[in-house]
């Protein structure tokens, strides 16, 4: 573990040297990503966040001075092995289909006594502001590494969310007539030099979903799936959806069901 951490620290320094690349340099970043991947094979900066998340998971925090160790992600209280790979799923206690982040916030509120506002205030990191949610999701995600994604969406509520996700995937609007499908509905396409996965297929959705949460070199941060999908909306020139909104959960059900059977490799490292 120590050796792994040292490699990670070296890796983080290498990445920091490249970070700060702007959109204008996207193509250069894409070209050099292969080099990063090689250099960082054992040193994904996300590993640091995973360690931090492990600490946060066990730490007694919040008004109730409780840890998250009794949080139930669908496999029973505290059972994290393979839990991420089976989310989103329907939870009886809330009567809702929830993704990993919705459930985590639910536990921060119910177990630790945080308000929802407190729990979600720093749902993503900014320069100088770290995000506990990013760290915790990276830790929880890594507990599914090597496990196949398994979201069959058989419960009626899950099935409905799958259909809602599919509806949103193909829904065109905005000043560029965009939908998710125009870039992610065909095989073997790319935008500029960036390869685009066909997210309607197992192969495309699997390749996309298995590596989240992921360290994003161009952003210098780990992104969760909520962050990823909310940014897709921005790129499509749509308004910004709320964090944890049902649209984003529904899209995840759609993508995870399509990806079902693909073995998780998380945390990933991406452009």
């Amino acid at each position, binding site marked *: 573990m120590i050796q792994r951490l040292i490699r990670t620290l070296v890796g983080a320094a290498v990445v920091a040297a490249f970070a700060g690349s702007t*959109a204008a340099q*996207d*193509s250069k970043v894409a070209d050099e990503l292969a080099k990063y991947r090689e250099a960082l094979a054992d040193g994904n900066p996300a590993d640091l966040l995973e360690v931090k998340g492990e600490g946060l998971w066990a730490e007694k925090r919040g008004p109730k001075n409780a840890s998250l160790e009794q949080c139930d992600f669908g496999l029973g209280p505290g059972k994290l092995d393979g839990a991420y790979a089976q989310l989103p799923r329907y939870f009886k206690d809330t009567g809702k289909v929830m993704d990993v982040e919705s459930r985590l916030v639910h536990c921060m509120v119910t177990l630790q006594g945080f308000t929802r506002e407190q729990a979600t205030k720093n749902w*993503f990191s900014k320069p100088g502001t770290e995000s506990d949610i990013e760290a915790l999701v990276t830790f929880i995600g890594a507990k599914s590494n090597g496990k196949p994604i398994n979201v069959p969406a058989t419960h009626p509520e899950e099935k*409905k969310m799958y*259909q*809602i996700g*599919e*509806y*949103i995937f*193909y*829904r*065109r*609007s*905005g*000043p*560029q*007539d*965009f*939908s998710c*499908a*125009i*870039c992610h*509905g*065909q095989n*073997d*396409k*790319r*935008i*500029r*030099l*960036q390869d*685009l996965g066909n997210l309607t297929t197992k192969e495309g959705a699997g390749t996309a979903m298995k590596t989240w949460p992921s360290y994003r070199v161009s952003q210098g941060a780990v992104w969760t799936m909520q962050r990823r999908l*909310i*940014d897709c*909306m*921005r*790129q499509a*020139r*749509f*308004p*910004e*959806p*709320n964090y944890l*909104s*049902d*649209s*984003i959960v*529904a899209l995840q059900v759609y993508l995870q069901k399509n990806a079902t059977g693909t073995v998780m490799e998380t945390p990933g490292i991406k452009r």
Partner: protein
Amino acid sequence: MNKKIAITFLCVALTQFAWAEEKTASGKSLSKNPVSAEAEKVFRDSFRVDSPKYWSQRLEQDETMKLCSQYKDNPPVAVRQKIELAQKATIRYPVDGKLLGDWKEGEKIAAHGRGGHIGFIQPDKPMTPRGGNCYACHQLAAKEVAYGTIGPSLHHFGKIRGNSDEIVKYAYDKIYNSNAFSACTNMPRFGLHSWLTPEEITHVVAFLMDPESPVNKD
């Protein structure tokens, strides 16, 4: 008599069947998403109510968007023709009637991909010019290797097709409203949405057509 009733029943049944199993050009079976009304509400409810009004307007769908969404961008022939006809009627031209602008301006517009991003996290700065972002999807000048492949290569566009008035008008019309030619194409309707002005579109047309433009020269 019984035979007549039976035939009537059969006809009704067949009509029902055809309705439910409407086929697209590619033969894919399509039925309307059974939860579309609820899904639309879920989608709309996902956005902050205190967003500026021009943001929420971006969630509105015109008839073309609705039909393309419903048919997953692959509508049956009759719907396709209806969309193309209606979209053709939306095309407007520059006041001076000239469809060929300055290819050097067009080159800049084609390469520029920023503009129009909104939201609280990473919006574009106000007044960021909007680009055509043509290279995101098309090959154009040979010297630009970072081109996408969602659309066809447009390298040597004018060289291959010549620069007759018809080709110039086709290029202008296609950029102004892509759906006038192929309903539910991935390509945005740059003129219809005022994403580009008619004048800016003439610059892009010149970039595609001019023999001196790197699209055709190299």
